[in-house]
């Protein structure tokens, strides 16, 4: 194992343990409630994780289409980057063609990330809401995306990609990136709420 891979592995373990601890720290959510259901919780949850992502499903998405789509692409690139990052630790070789196909997605995701950061810094209402964490988190993801794209095009950049990924992972439990584990819970609860009451799903 190379030094950068060892650093990445250590960061991955630290991040996973910290995020798991943070998630368990809020406690478990009680099951079905006492009030008789009008609709189906499971249908609501299915809706939350499928159709509710469509741009026209929510006013906040449809009314801010460029931002919403940029966010979707940014996250798609992020997931792809994280998957590729983990693969660098495994004893498998990724076909070159796959890396070459991944590079444009990572590049577009990077552009989206930078665009979202620019919007945050230049829109007064958004800037007023922002904390240093918003900038740091965005830049760390952007750095990882950029190095991932570089590594996809040139395998020699792979150690830098691993170190950038390690940095991102170590930072993840400290700020807003924690939403990666809590979002699933919130979205499930959102679906359960509206599903149970017969409003959605």
């Amino acid at each position: 194992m190379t030094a950068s891979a060892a650093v990445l592995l250590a960061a991955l373990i630290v991040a996973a343990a910290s995020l798991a601890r943070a998630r368990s720290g809020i406690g478990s959510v009680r099951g079905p409630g006492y009030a008789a259901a009008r609709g189906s919780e499971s249908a609501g949850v299915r809706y939350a994780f499928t159709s509710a992502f469509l741009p026209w499903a929510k006013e906040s998405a449809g009314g801010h289409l460029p931002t919403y789509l940029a966010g979707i692409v940014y996250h798609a690139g992020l997931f792809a980057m994280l998957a590729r990052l983990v693969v660098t630790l495994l004893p498998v070789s990724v076909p070159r063609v796959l890396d070459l196909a991944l590079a444009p997605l990572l590049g577009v995701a990077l552009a989206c990330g930078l665009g979202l950061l620019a919007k945050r810094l230049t829109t007064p209402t958004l800037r007023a809401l922002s904390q240093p964490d918003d900038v740091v988190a965005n830049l760390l993801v952007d750095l990882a995306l950029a190095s991932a794209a570089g590594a996809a095009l040139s395998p020699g950049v792979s150690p830098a990609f691993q170190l950038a990924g390690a940095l991102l992972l170590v930072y993840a439990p400290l700020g807003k990136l924690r939403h990666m584990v809590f979002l699933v819970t919130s979205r499930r609860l959102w679906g359960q709420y509206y599903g149970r009451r017969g409003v959605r799903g």
Partner: protein
Amino acid sequence: MTAPALGVLAGLDPRVAASLESCVRCNLCAESCHVFLEDGDPASAPAAKVDRVARLYRRYRTWSGRVVPWLTGARDLTPGILEDLKEAAFGRCTMCGRCTLNCAVGLDPAAVIGLARAMLVAAGKVPAGIQANVAAALETGNSMRIPPEEVRETLAWLEQDLRESTGDPTVSLPVDRPGRRVLYALNPREIKFFPLSIQAAGLLFHAAHESWTLTSTDFDITNYAYFACDRGAQAAISRKLLERAEALGVERLVVAECGHGYRSLRWEAPEVLGRRLPFEIVSFVELLDEYVAGGRVTLDAARNRERVTLHDPCNLVRNGGVIEPQRRVLRRAAWDFVEMTPNREHAYCCGGGGGLLAASEYAARRVAAGRLKAEQIRRTGAKVVVTPCHNCIDQLLELNKHYDLGVEIRTLAEVAADALIPPNHAG
């Protein structure tokens, strides 16, 4: 003052914690809030209101918030911050949940505001008007301190009046009758200020040959502790009516037209009391829909010729799931029924929800935030606005006057009663 509030933060509901951890401050929810749309103040955006609570959460519940608070904006709870929290949670939010429905991430800003309010309860910072209603309900069984004798006298007078106006001596407003199928529970404002809605419901029950009763004690469906997010008092207030329903041995508790009353009894009471109830809880709106659909009540839309529109109470519709029954009834009861845009679960709050009508310190902002609803109403060209919620009625009456809308504000029962074909004439 801050220690009790921090205690609430320490015993946080995991659902709310998940929301606090999930907000990425994207602010895409801003335009879903009627308060923000009206005043354009960044502090009114749901994300900004959530952030006030989230910064406290980070400070006291996360490692980074304790060690490097500047990174995430974590901050200490001080008396000044508590005042700011009160202004945000009570003064800039009706907890209508429109931001929750529209949150791109899928978190629940309304529940976060609920946490803020619970912290303010612990700190003794609830607006005096809301707290006075809570105290009245706990002490007397209803938020307007109406004694049982006055309830019985008012209902007797209403019954007499109903018999005279209909010419039907068999119409009745039965009170405190055990063993009936239905208990019809009221908003105390109906007894004091809106007796016509009680008479309208009475006529419809009579037409449907329903086995029903009212109660002179613990009749109150309103729950200001629910607005305040004072879970202990909320449970105590709900328990009074639910125990009364159990004592009367009814099969169904029918909640008069009141959005938060319905939500707090139908959806929240079983949760805060931690038990299933031995009877069904339905809104009068749902019951009326059953009557009309089942042919127990016959309506003639030609009796209501003026254009009618419908305001959707947030707690009944978006948060209660009663979406279509009132529409089915209105299509049968009104000749020219038109929808506002947007409607149903997407409807804007009238501005009077969340207990704001009882918080006089925010009255000017409440009326200003209702401009959106006033414009919606004006665009329909309707002469009558129906809303199955007495809280919304109070706000709409004020908007009607303030924005010179020239409309009549009515309950669904009142419009349906006007369209009612008396049983001996039907079919």
